[in-house]
């Protein structure tokens, strides 16, 4: 008994013979992906321009929409799945995402903290922010 399966090249549809898919289902996958991506993109542009939503939540909403669209692209265009033949690809992706989050969130936190700790009068503080 083994739980190891064949690997699969990233971007390839499943290599497992029992999940073999024809061209028509491949076309369907890409078309569903395109439709979902278009819907999410349209929602992003609507959320950024509408005055119906509380302005404080818009940034968070845009971030969530971007994460969702990234997921759509990964699943429908790059064929990254949770299947056992895809473990290596997903692990590499997870490591990449970890580094990206560390770099972006770390930079933002540290710079915001530095700005908070600048013990300057308000007008000088403002000047500093504009340089």
């Amino acid at each position, binding site marked *: *008994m*083994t739980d*190891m*399966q*064949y*690997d*699969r*090249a*990233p*971007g*390839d549809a499943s290599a497992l*013979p*029992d999940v073999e898919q024809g*061209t028509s289902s*491949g*076309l369907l996958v*890409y*078309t569903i*992906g*395109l439709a979902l*991506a*278009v819907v999410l*993109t349209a929602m*992003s*542009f609507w*959320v*950024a*321009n509408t005055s119906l939503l509380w*302005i404080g939540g*818009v*940034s968070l909403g*845009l*971030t969530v*929409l*971007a994460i969702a*669209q*990234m997921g759509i*692209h*990964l699943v429908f*265009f*790059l064929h990254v799945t949770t299947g056992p033949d895809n473990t*290596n*690809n997903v692990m*590499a*992706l997870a*490591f*990449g995402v970890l*580094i*990206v989050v560390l*770099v*972006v969130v*770390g*930079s*933002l936190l540290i*710079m915001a903290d530095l700005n908070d700790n600048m013990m300057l009068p308000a007008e000088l503080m403002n000047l500093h*922010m*504009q*340089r």
Partner: protein
Amino acid sequence: MNIAVAVDEGRHEARPSASEAGPATKRIVVGYGFWVFLLSDIVMFSAFFAAYAVLAHATAGGPSGVQLFSQPSVAIETGCLLASSYTCGLMSLAIGSRRFGVTYLAALVTFLLGAAFLALEVREFMGMIAVGAGPQRSAFLSAFFTLVGCHGLHVAAGLVWLAVMMAQVAIKGINATVERRLLCFSLFWHALDIVWVWLFTVVYLMGVLS
């Protein structure tokens, strides 16, 4: 329970275990290596994103994103890149089933949409530089041109790569080597689209919020 075990054993007999199967095929090794390269490329983009996010309000009295960014233009650019990602996927399918006509057609549409994206972006950059909002104006604009320009350079490189690949298909036909290169190209093109999703969200949409 018994049925599940039986199915499992049937599959086990049909497929040797990973150690019996031997080393992975070259397609898997090449694809995985390119996947790791793409992830390192995205890590590089994340550094530019971090720099942009930190410097987004450092306009030094110069123009800000609200004054510079045109949303209709960004929406068209987004549409072009998304559609070209889709036709790139259709090209992969056509290569898999060896339909040369569809392959060339999908590649041509992918190329044209990518070129349209690039043309719109260059026009936007020229317009900004013409009104004195070049990369030397402020830290915000330096970060903007670095981030968006780096993505644009990737798209330009992808267009050259696609043209070269179509020449290879025309001359060599679709053999295993050409097919591996086309797999890497489609990975590259889809990854660029993912970077653009974050770009239009963080730079263009969040940039015009307040």
